[in-house]
């Protein structure tokens, strides 16, 4: 006993009997929660309010009748306020209950869990739409009852008669000038009309821009989306969760609330959304991207609120709803200037660059001059665009390995940098984005006037809102333009890249569209089309097939051929050529320039094939060689980058090799690109003699690496030790590619001849020329006969002579025949040709290339 009382912690103060086995203890009532104590004001506020109302009524009786005694006034007031007294009594009971519940967990549990809790659980088990409608009905009935009671008292009528008479009485009061209303009512009435005008205008302006499709109204199906199977599977998964929410909710999860589909234009994002609309059993709400561009401040906010009100209603009625924001960047960007539909003159140019970066395509018309670098790899093109953007003073995005832009959802990217240069307001302008963010994350907040305000006023916990199952789908090709807050989990839970389809996807897409037309393509040709259509999208493939149909119709055929589609693809990829004719020797020089690129590429590049080579001028581009990746590529290795640089440098090496050490300005773009690549190789990617990365130089920490190289302050870089290493590496690679071209001299001249003859040839033709095989357009075997080789050298020597002497080319372009490789000459100097002036030849403009510089040209058999 002494031990028991020795310390209060040793034993309980009372003997509770045998200790129950673990896990079977009855819940300790004391451990249960009790009601949070109310402060004094909350406890008495309604009693106080009722007392004040009573006192007011009594005072009114005293004031209204100068004869009445205080006793009679109190008594009469008491007799005429039965409802008030009943409310008072209820409030006393309620506060009594609260008082007990604050002290007794048992009582609190009994009331909150056993009685009202049971009712709440029963109600929660009902159909949400039925609850919603019943709730609305009950609220309407309550309003009518209270209104009837009040009007009945005012008009001394039964409540139902007061309700019946209310419209005519109120209208009579408001519009009958003979009523002689007090001035305050007149003022209020005028204010009501003034405010009502604004309400009506804004209500009208907040309409529109939202289309609701009921299930089965849209005919597009998942089977109509080709080439995006992985993404489609992911999207289907979300739809399954929406269709059957119990599958995830019963396991403690929740239905994902938002999906972002991002990727280049034309890859099928909108089509995918349409398919969702067609497949789902839930309503599908399509939001017009321009719907939130409003003239007046606040209209966009109203539209967003109106939209989500509609979504909540649909979600309740149908058990879920899908809302799709197309071109979400127009709404979800704080820098909406560029993304908006009304870019200014300057922002339009930015937009072009941004779109190019996002699409991984060359930006037409940007300051970056690709020269004839159409054949650069995708990574290199992206790198060069970053350089161009940096020169324009625009930050480029963070680089993923290999320099590929990662349009990451978090972190700033180049595109955002562009956009923030604009007018920079909320997405869609003026608080619309903020309203969207609020609505998307505010679905769990208590809703409704009674729930939000009245229950709180009564010190009652607001009821949780319905479980609105709203799946938000957004599509954009400028993901970096989206506000990070929009993309956080809870708003957009999943982001799927709808990228360029894989080869299999492209093949499937080609087959899908070809099945709709008459064609004679074999399965192997369709596959080949898919292989060479790298970065083709569903939209661009559809366009190519349609262009093929146009070509076939133009040539009065009913069936589309493989060649039609090749032509269509080249036309769509590179655009139509200018109507331009080179001077006699300049055409040969351009052909040799491009032939050097083509041969170097054929020899050096293993993961890419040549799509086409052309010497047809397009704007500032005299010609180009265009590659197609043979496989999807994530990073490039040193060997590949060196091959790429050598392919760039092939133009300089080749021009010096074939034109006696001279070279044209046409190599400028190639040198710029190759220098940039070698710089990044040696200073950032550990592909030089040193290891340290210049991207982390003290002065550049936190800066973007491209700025380090090309922001204008590092132009002296080439004078540094690192710059000298870059120059040395370029010289080394130039020498290597020079040697390669010297060994392939005849092949270069042969490809140049094919280009001069056909202007544009395919990659297969180039392979045919080099390998002596038959290509789609060119029979390469003719170039391998000794007489042909000699003739090409003779022709080339004549061109060089004409260049030096500024005279006409004496020999015409040789015509080579497969049978015996006979040669015809295309005589350029006809009798009607005007004589050309001659000038003295100057010295060679560039240094000779050492042993690989064959000057003067020699025949393959060694004779000059």
């Amino acid at each position, binding site marked *: 006993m002494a031990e028991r009382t020795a310390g209060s912690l040793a034993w309980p103060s009372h003997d509770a009997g045998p200790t129950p086995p673990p896990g079977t203890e009855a819940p300790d009532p004391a451990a249960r929660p009790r009601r949070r104590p109310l402060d004094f004001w909350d406890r008495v506020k309604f009693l106080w309010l009722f007392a004040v109302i*009573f006192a007011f009524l009594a005072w009114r009786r005293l004031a*209204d*009748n*100068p*004869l*009445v*005694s205080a*006793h*009679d006034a*109190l*008594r*009469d007031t*008491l*007799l005429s306020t039965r409802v008030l007294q009943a409310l008072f009594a209820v409030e006393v009971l309620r506060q009594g209950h609260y008082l007990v519940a604050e002290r007794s967990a048992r009582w609190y549990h009994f009331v909150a869990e056993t009685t009202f809790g049971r009712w709440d659980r029963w109600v929660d088990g009902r159909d949400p739409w039925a609850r919603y409608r019943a709730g609305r009905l009950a609220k309407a009935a309550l309003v009518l009852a209270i209104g009837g009671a009040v009007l009945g008292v005012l008009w*001394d009528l039964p409540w139902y008669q007061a309700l019946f008479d209310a419209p005519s009485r109120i209208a009579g009061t408001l519009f009958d000038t003979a009523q002689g209303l007090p001035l305050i009512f007149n003022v209020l009435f005028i204010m009501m009309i003034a405010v009502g005008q604004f309400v009506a205008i804004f209500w009208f302006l907040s309409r529109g821009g939202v289309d609701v499709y009921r299930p089965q109204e849209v005919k597009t199906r998942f089977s109509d989306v080709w080439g995006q199977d992985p993404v489609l599977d992911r999207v289907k998964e979300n739809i399954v969760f929406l269709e059957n929410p119990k599958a995830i909710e019963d396991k403690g999860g929740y239905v994902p609330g938002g999906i972002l589909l991002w990727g280049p234009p034309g890859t099928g994002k909108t089509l995918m959304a349409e398919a969702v609309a067609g497949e789902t059993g839930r309503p599908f709400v399509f939001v017009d991207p321009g719907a939130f561009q409003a003239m007046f401040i606040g209209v966009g906010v109203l539209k967003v609120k109106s939209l989500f009100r509609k979504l909540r209603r649909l979600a309740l009625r149908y058990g879920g709803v899908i809302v799709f924001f197309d071109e979400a960047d127009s709404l979800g960007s704080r820098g909406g200037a560029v993304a908006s539909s009304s870019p200014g003159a300057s922002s339009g140019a930015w937009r072009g660059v941004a779109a190019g970066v996002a699409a991984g395509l060359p930006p037409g018309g940007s300051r970056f001059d690709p020269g004839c670098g159409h054949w650069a790899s995708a990574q290199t093109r992206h790198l060069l665009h970053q350089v161009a953007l940096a020169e324009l003073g625009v930050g480029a995005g963070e680089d993923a390995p290999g320099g590929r832009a990662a349009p990451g959802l978090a972190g700033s990217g180049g595109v955002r940098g562009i956009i923030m240069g604009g007018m920079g307001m909320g997405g869609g302008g003026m608080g619309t984005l903020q309203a969207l963010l609020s609505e998307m994350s505010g679905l769990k907040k208590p809703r409704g006037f009674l729930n939000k305000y009245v229950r709180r006023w009564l010190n009652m916990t607001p009821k949780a809102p319905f479980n609105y199952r709203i799946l938000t789908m957004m599509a954009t090709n400028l993901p970096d333009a989206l506000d990070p807050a929009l993309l956080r989990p809870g708003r957009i839970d999943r982001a799927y890249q709808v990228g360029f389809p894989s080869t299999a996807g492209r093949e499937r897409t080609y087959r899908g569209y070809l099945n709709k037309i008459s064609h004679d393509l074999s399965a192997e040709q369709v596959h080949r089309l898919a292989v060479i259509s790298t970065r083709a999208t569903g939209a661009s493939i559809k366009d190519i097939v349609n262009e093929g149909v146009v070509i076939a119709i133009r040539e009065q055929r009913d069936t589309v051929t493989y060649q039609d589609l090749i032509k269509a693809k080249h036309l769509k990829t590179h655009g139509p050529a200018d109507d331009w004719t080179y001077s006699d020797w300049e055409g040969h020089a351009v052909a040799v320039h491009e032939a050097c690129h083509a041969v170097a590429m054929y020899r050096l590049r293993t993961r890419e094939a040549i799509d086409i080579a052309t010497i047809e001028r397009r704007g500032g581009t005299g010609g180009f060689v265009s590659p197609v990746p043979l496989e999807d590529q994530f990073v490039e290795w040193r060997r590949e980058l060196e091959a790429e640089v050598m392919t760039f440098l092939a133009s300089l090496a080749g021009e010096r090799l074939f034109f006696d050490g001279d070279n044209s300005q046409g190599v400028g773009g190639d040198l710029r690109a190759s220098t940039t690549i070698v710089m990044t190789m040696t200073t950032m990617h550990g592909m030089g003699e040193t290891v340290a990365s210049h991207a982390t130089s003290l002065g550049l920490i936190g800066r973007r690496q491209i700025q380090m190289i090309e922001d204008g302050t590092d132009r002296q870089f080439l004078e540094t030790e690192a710059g000298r290493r870059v120059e040395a590496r370029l010289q080394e690679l130039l020498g290597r590619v020079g040697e390669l071209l010297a060994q392939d001299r005849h092949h270069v001249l042969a490809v140049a001849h094919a280009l001069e003859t056909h202007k544009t040839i395919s990659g297969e033709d180039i392979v045919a020329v080099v390998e002596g095989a038959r290509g789609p357009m060119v029979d390469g075997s003719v170039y391998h006969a000794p007489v042909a080789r000699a003739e090409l050298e003779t022709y080339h020597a004549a061109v060089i002579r004409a260049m030096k002497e500024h005279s006409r080319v004496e020999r015409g372009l040789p015509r080579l025949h497969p049978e015996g490789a006979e040669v015809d000459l295309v005589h350029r100097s006809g009798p009607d040709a005007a004589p050309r002036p001659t000038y003295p030849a100057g010295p060679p403009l560039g240094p000779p290339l050492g042993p690989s510089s064959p000057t003067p040209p020699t025949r393959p058999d060694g004779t000059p």
Partner: protein
Amino acid sequence: MAGIALAGCGGPDNVYVAHADAGVFVRLPADWTVFTFADKDPTADPRTDPSAGTWRVVIDGAVDADRAHIESPSPTEPVGFVEILPTGLIEGGEQISNHASLRSLLLGGSSDPLDAPGVDVVAYEEIDLGHHWGNRVVAEVRRDGDTVVMSQVAFLDDGSNRLQVMRVLCSADCYELHEAEITAVLDSWTLEG
């Protein structure tokens, strides 16, 4: 709270006749009864048509109060009415322009109680409130062998547009018994401008 509760428990001190818009107030003994027009179909008495601007209540001091008591020629318990009438609705109302015409309302004709045969004016007083003027008459009227004491307070507004009248009738025996109550009722007459 306790005071309020006690107030509810006790009986009333008085009952009141009040027309706040016209500013007419009268205090009656607690055991008197007031019949408003709502107690009876208002169409039965054209003088209680509120749309015409008239208003009339009947007061009855009988234990078994009844509106019909007002029709009695010699009521044994005090009975009367309080009435507000636009003069335009009264036949010959335009002639009500002096104390004599107000006094003559007591007998229901043009006879002035001061001069009428069979009528002894017990008390008479002329009152000018500034915004209203009128008089108070208490007279014994002998009719068919019965003597009825008629007490009347009648006022007109300055524009002679609206007439406010209270009249209490009682037989002579009744008046002797209830004189103090009737006098108190007449004294309580209040007319606000």
